[in-house]
């Protein structure tokens, strides 16, 4: 089996009866068995669950009645999404044995669509990180170079899809956690509009910044994965009640006439020159396909990162307060209640999580709130206004996804160096606009580079359409790592 066959090709083969969901699922499970000890992409492999779902999908294809374009598609699901009866760890010791009695809305939707969950994929603890080195269990490795990180925090699903250990996957993006690993692993990764995919059952890191989104081997798969997951959910008060279009319908319309904005602030001092060259070349390609290019300015960009490291930790310190050993998850006994809670949290959280809880607690404290959290909210408004102003002139913003390619394990020991990785991805999380990363080349060392396309609120269709046009004009997406 070709382990890198996109979902739309797999399901076409299912319909033609050339292969079955069970056969494909078995092949993926075999590859996981063989390769995941090297890759560390999964925390929990849900073999029995996958086999049962695959058998049911087989029957539907036999009857000629598949449920959706994802029916029978074997997927990796980031372990931040709750799965009923299946351990959901969030990459943390504190939830190592947590078995939710409920499914996340997206998990319910995927099951209804007939998709097959191969397993729960690795991640930085509580989605805090950009390298998947901060998983409490083991790091995930980049299939292109096992000495390097896959990016993070959704490094698990990214590595699984890139390494041929799943046909597609879902991650979450709070500061770039889908787009950066997509760029590092040579995948398409989409962060939709805030509220487009329900967050119900997504273990919260920073509620106002958390987004769920897909990883695909190509743009078509990404559009299909988005279509099934998107839609209003009465269980999430922040979910948007707007119709979900068929995201594949307009993919082939091309970029002719689209106005593309290139922001000065996304080409910065110190960025990898190979990335700059690849992204500039990609912009030329889009131009040659009929897009018009103009410079735009997003002046608040340099402040977005600092602002993010106020708002994100503030919300995290609140969201993570519930892990106290009283109700579920880890409990370390203590002399009394406070001792038990302190010991539980000391043992259950890793260093990066503790750092952010402390940061967040500090910025929300009496006397500091206005100077930090209040100020950060103002800057966030400026970041939003930047996009509003730019989108009054252009249809899309084109930029690099990251300032550097996949780095080596342990290379970024300084937290601030690690945080700088997300400098180009954070603004779209802060403003809630949709953005995709598509492969746009490789460094001489053979590491993938990502091109970021940022669109208007709820305009995922245009983002995907431009990404598709670029993909069809290039063949970066056909290159796959050879993982044996």
């Amino acid at each position, binding site marked *: 089996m070709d382990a890198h066959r996109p979902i739309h090709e797999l399901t076409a083969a299912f319909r033609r009866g050339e292969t079955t969901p069970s056969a494909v699922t078995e092949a993926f499970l075999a590859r996981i068995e063989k390769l995941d000890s090297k890759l560390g992409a999964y925390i929990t492999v849900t073999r029995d669950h996958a086999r049962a779902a695959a058998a049911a999908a087989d029957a539907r294809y036999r009857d000629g009645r598949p449920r959706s374009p994802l029916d029978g598609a074997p997927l990796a699901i980031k372990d931040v*999404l*709750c799965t009923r009866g299946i351990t*959901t760890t*969030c990459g943390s010791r504190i*939830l190592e044995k*947590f078995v*939710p*009695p*409920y499914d*996340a809305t997206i998990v319910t939707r995927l099951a209804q669509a007939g998709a097959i969950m191969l397993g729960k994929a690795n991640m930085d603890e509580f989605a805090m990180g950009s390298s998947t080195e901060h998983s409490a269990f083991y790091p995930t490795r980049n299939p292109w170079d096992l000495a390097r990180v896959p990016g993070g925090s959704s490094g698990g699903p990214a590595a699984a899809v890139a390494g041929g250990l799943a046909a597609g996957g879902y991650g979450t993006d709070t500061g770039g956690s889908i787009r950066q690993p997509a760029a590092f692993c040579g995948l398409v990764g989409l962060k939709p509009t805030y509220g487009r995919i329900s*967050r*119900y*059952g*997504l*273990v*919260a890191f*920073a*509620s*106002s910044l958390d987004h769920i989104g897909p990883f695909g081997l190509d743009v078509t798969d990404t559009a299909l994965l988005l279509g099934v997951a998107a839609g209003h959910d*009465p*269980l*999430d*008060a*922040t979910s948007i009640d707007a119709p979900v279009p068929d995201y594949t319908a307009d993919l082939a319309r091309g970029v002719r006439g689209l106005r593309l904005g290139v922001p000065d602030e996304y080409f910065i001092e110190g960025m990898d020159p190979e990335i700059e060259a690849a992204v500039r070349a990609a912009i030329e390609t889009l131009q040659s396909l009929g897009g018009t290019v103009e410079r735009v300015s997003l002046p608040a960009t340099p402040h977005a990162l600092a602002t993010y490291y106020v708002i994100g930790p*503030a*919300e995290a*310190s*609140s969201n993570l*307060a*519930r892990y*106290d050993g*009283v*109700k*579920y998850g880890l409990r370390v006994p203590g002399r009394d*209640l*406070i001792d038990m*809670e302190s010991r539980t949290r000391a043992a259950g959280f890793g260093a990066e999580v503790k750092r952010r809880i402390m940061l967040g*607690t500090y910025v*929300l*404290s*009496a006397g500091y*709130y206005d100077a930090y*959290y209040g100020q950060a909210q103002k800057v966030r408004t400026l970041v939003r206004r930047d996009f509003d102003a730019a989108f009054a002139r252009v249809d899309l913003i084109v930029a690099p996804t990251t300032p550097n390619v996949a780095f080596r394990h342990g290379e970024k020991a300084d937290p601030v160096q690690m945080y700088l990785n997300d400098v180009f991805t954070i603004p779209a999380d802060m403003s809630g606009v949709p953005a995709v990363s598509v492969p746009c080349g490789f460094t001489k060392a053979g590491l993938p580079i990502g091109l970021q396309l940022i669109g208007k609120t709820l305009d995922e269709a245009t983002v995907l359409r431009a990404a598709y046009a670029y993909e069809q004009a290039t063949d970066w997406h056909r290159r796959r790592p050879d993982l044996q």
Partner: protein
Amino acid sequence: MSYDVVIGLEVHAQLTTRTKMFCGCPATFGAPPNTQTCPICQGMPGTLPVINRRAVEYGVRTALAFSCRINPACRFARKHYYYPDMPKNFQISQYEEPLAEDGWLEVDVPTGGTRRIGIQRLHLEEDVGKLVHEGTLESAQASLVDYNRAGVPLMETVSRPEIRSPEEAAAYLRAFRAVLIYLGVNDGNMEEGSLRCDANVSLKPAGARELGTKVEIKNLNSFRNVQRALEFEVKRQAEALDRGERIVQETRLWDADHGYTRSMRSKEFAHDYRYFPEPDLVPLKLDAAFVERIAGELPELPRARRGRFTAEFGLPAYDAGILTQSRALADYYETAVRAFPQPKVVSNWVMSELLRVLPGDDERAIAETRLTPARLAGLLRLIEDGTISGKIAKTVFEKMVETGDEASAIVRREGLTQVADAGALEALVDAAIAGNQRAVEDFRGGKTAAAKAIVGHVMKASGGKANPAMVSRLVEQKLTKS
């Protein structure tokens, strides 16, 4: 030294919505522990709150009754502190942008007359669960948590510091509770904790402008305790000030068993709640049409109804006050008066008999009683037309409570009809006169009161069924005649 007392009350009222504030669990009291919970109100990872529309409606209804300004947009905020009865270790409440602000409540003051006490704000939040300790808090080897109450809608109403005495505080709370019960938003049950009160109290030298240091008192779970605790605290503070001490800003707990307040935590250990806007909820916008609809549906409030009862039915203020203590009781009374248009008679029966068997503020018990207003009116008609005596009527009333039957059916079944047949009565009177010669002699000797003793004997012999007016007449006739 003489001091001015300054009191402000914070009242937490559980709203009588069917479901909880942010999830679909039932909000009812008394179910076995943790049977009315779900992942949302247990604060499980990944779950999200959704605002209960009915709770918002109840909040708006109350705010309108207190003449508050309803904010067209309000927000929920997270209030953080660690305590195991709170599943998320934060409470979803409202902080800078409450549902409503700036209203007032009219209160009868102990010195006579009424006063308007300002209401600073009214906001919605979720209740917390309950800890159950094995044994006492100090000796317990384990504590258990019941999350049934966690997430029940709570409405917090904060008065301005305009209450001037402990008695006035109790009066405020009484008036407050009556309004809530009228609005049908709270059951008024302080014992079960569906209505809870905290007080802020400070003293200042009489006439001084600047407020003194305030002390917060918690655990005031009845009108009596509100008054007692505040009386204690006013005395404690006055004595401390007289000794030249400074009042410490702190939270004190009222110990009802021992009748004193004791320090819980001082200012330096005060919580830093780290409020910030709840990111899982969008701002709550209340459009004018929604508020107008609720305003249009507001019932007549206790004070207005009380006024109408004295004006329309000519009732004494005392009667009107009791009859309007709950909406159900006032409705009961009005229905009964329509069926038996003698307002004072109906009032007497409701106050002395009905309220003996039913608590006047128990909306449900009154609304659902088998002794309906129509049946009470039926009973009163039997007295009026002489079928039964007032005394027998009380027995019939008891039986109505027991069986739920109509008065006439009971009277018929039990043969309680008054004996008004002159022939039958004459025989009884003759027998009584014959058997009480001493009374007869007394009467003839000029002690006219002695006739009453004979009447009493006749009544007794008839089992209370004899028509008392007829018996008196007969006895008098016979005694003067012979």
